[in-house]
């Protein structure tokens, strides 16, 4: 069992590792009769932003939760910096920053209390954590919300708190499940810049989304997951060329067999709303 690799921030502020920061190998997960994952494989190297695209229920969140060590795989493994998440989840969790699709934070705490808690659990140094939080607080314009109970914040503000909490320890790996949901255009842009910076520093990002434009804009490599399997993987151009499509959306719909389904549903919609006309 791995106990951790020598890694992280060098003097130049760059992450230095040549092995995959995220590696998922033949990952399967079964819930009763439901096969949520059927042998998922992919790697994310330092400096990469890997987009995991898939329709609802395809297995994106299950994959991410297996990587964090929140669920035990039925078979296969998920590794962070070469360390198996199922075998050493505490170590893995110390290396990652995670933002859930719907962040479940302690609603009665203020953002300050919450970040204090997170920093305490992560054993962070006061000076360095305050430097990061001050910068991120300014970037995300948190001044008016920093001492308010999280319960009273909007979805977007909660998302910002979750983002800050995922970054306070300067993780080498970011696992983001729809991190832009609820954010306004300006903040979304800032987050995209932030992800690019993280990748430039040599960090790895796993970015789960079903919004094609976002994936097109920021991901260096994309994996399309459908029915618990990665059905295609590559750069944007590779995917477009491979399926002879113009856009990522076309690629996605072709690979997930959803083109015909959409045509059927559009016909049903027409019948529902324009029944008289069609008759």
């Amino acid at each position: 069992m791995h106990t951790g690799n020598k890694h992280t921030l060098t003097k130049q502020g760059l992450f230095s590792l040549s092995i995959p920061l995220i590696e998922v190998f033949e990952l399967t997960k079964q819930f009763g009769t439901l096969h949520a994952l059927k042998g998922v494989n992919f790697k994310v190297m330092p400096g990469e932003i890997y987009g995991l695209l898939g329709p609802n229920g395809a297995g994106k969140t299950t994959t991410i939760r297996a990587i964090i060590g929140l669920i035990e795989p039925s078979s296969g493994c998920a590794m962070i910096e070469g360390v198996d998440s199922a075998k050493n989840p505490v170590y893995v969790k110390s290396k990652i920053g995670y933002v859930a699709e719907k962040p479940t934070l302690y609603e009665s705490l203020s953002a300050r209390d919450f970040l204090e808690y997170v920093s305490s659990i992560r054993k962070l140094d006061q000076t360095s954590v305050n430097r990061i939080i001050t910068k991120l607080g300014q970037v995300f314009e948190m001044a008016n919300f920093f001492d308010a109970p999280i319960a009273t914040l909007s979805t977007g503000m909660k998302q910002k708190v979750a983002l800050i909490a995922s970054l306070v320890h300067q993780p080498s790996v970011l696992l983001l499940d729809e991190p832009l949901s609820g954010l306004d255009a300006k903040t979304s842009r800032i987050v995209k810049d932030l992800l690019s910076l993280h990748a430039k520093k040599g960090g790895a990002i796993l970015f789960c989304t079903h919004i094609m434009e976002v994936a097109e804009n920021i991901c260096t490599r994309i994996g399309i997951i459908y029915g618990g399997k990665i059905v295609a993987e590559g750069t944007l151009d590779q995917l477009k060329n491979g399926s002879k499509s113009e856009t990522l959306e076309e690629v996605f719909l072709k690979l997930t067999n959803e083109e015909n389904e959409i045509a059927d549903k559009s016909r049903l919609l027409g019948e529902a709303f324009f029944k008289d006309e069609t008759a």
Partner: protein
Amino acid sequence: MKLLEAWRNSRLPYKEVVFRSIAEERGRMWWGGFGKGQLGEDSQNDYELTKKALRIAKWDKSLVSIFCVIAAIVPFTAQFFGSPMIGLTSAISLSLAVTFGFIALYAIQTLSSFVSAESCVLLSTLPINQKDFSLVTLFSFVRSVDYIVIGSILSQLIMVIYYTWSPVAVLIMFVACIVNTVLAVAVSLWFSRIFTKNLSSGGRSKKATVLRLFFILMWGSLLMGVSLLISLPYYIVPSLELTLLGSESITYLLFGLFHPFSAGITVANISSPVVADSIVLIGAASLIVYVIVALFAGKWMIKTVKQISTGTDIKIARVTAKNFSIKPRSPLLGYVIKDLKVSSRNPATAFFFALPVLETVIVSFVTVNFEMMRASTLLVSSFMGGIFVLLMPLALLSAEGTGLEFTKTLPLNINKLVISKTLISTLTYVPIPIVLLIMALMKPLTSPTALLIPFFIILSIASASIFEIQLFLSSVTKGKLAALIHDLKKLIIGIAILLLPLVAYSVLYLVSFSHIFAVFIMGCISVLEIVIAFALLKHNKH
């Protein structure tokens, strides 16, 4: 919208309030099922879990109602249990006081969700006019306490009919019951509103924290008052009646000014006068004043409920942060502080922090009347204090709520979580041995060695807490989530761990007549318990 239709429609927002209060305040539901809602099989469980939560809420309400009815009747039955007199004035007053406490305490459990939750959001999107919408919201609010109110009022009226056979007395009792209910619900609504407002306003004000602490203590006192009234009616009713009869008319008059004594004096003396007419008149006049107060309180409640339904009740004031600095602590201290903050900001769990004060009062109350501090007194006091503390780990787990899903993503060893909650629970017990030690210093002791009993129990409390939390955690990982809700088995194990050294002491003393030997073995058992508990923690992988 017709009243009946509004009543029917109010079921939906009421269910939402009940569900939210259970889901938010009893976080142990979130340990597995809800948190893993996206995982497929667990999302199927969500539906079952929701149905179960609502079923439990119904049972909860029915059981509390039955208990409330019994508590309302008991003061009237003192005569059947050897009391020399019925004491109708005291019985009525006490019965009203008990139901006041019951209704207020139960209402607080659900009203905090009513005040803070968007339970009516779904209705607000439907094409219903504002008047109907407010009516439905009001009814959903009334549903929170319907069984309890109807049950207690009916039982009190039946008792008054039985003892007085006077239509006027029954009518006045009915008015008094309504006044009592309105005041109780108004107090709960006010409390929940202030608490929620206090939390919503944010900021780092010391005043807000002090105010919250004050509320916690107030709530704890209410609970203690109700417990005392329920457990000691046969002692309280006759002595209260004797106090009333034996007092100077001025004292009686003063009693008459306060609710529920004003109602008690008026109703009891209409059928069979035992005091001067002037005093009855004062009682009746006070009752009229309380009717007016209840009318105002009722109007305020309707206004507040309407404001809640339109989302204009609580205004959130934003405080601009002067800086973004934070102060990280060690992981364990960080977790303890988080636990304290989270649970003290939840109205349903906050009152557990009044436990040390309540325990101190109860233990002092038990021991102060004894001329000598006996080992049996120390045993009983230790157990009584400890039994309350055993509720604390469960309350702390409940307070975690959905936030636990986030904690699971942090590099936290599960043992830190267990130790944090064990530390808090054990610390709430610490006042007991200290109070007992102080009491013992003021009184002669049968055996100085016996003073070690409550101190050894600290170890048993810690062991019981560890076992309770571990059992809850292991149940979840085995997927027996449904069994977690209201599962008393864990508590029983906690009680057994607490009782074991106390029983061992008693048995050994009866066999050997040696305090030193009995205390020594008891201490060994307590130490063994804590060693086993820590050994159990070592088995936690992560």
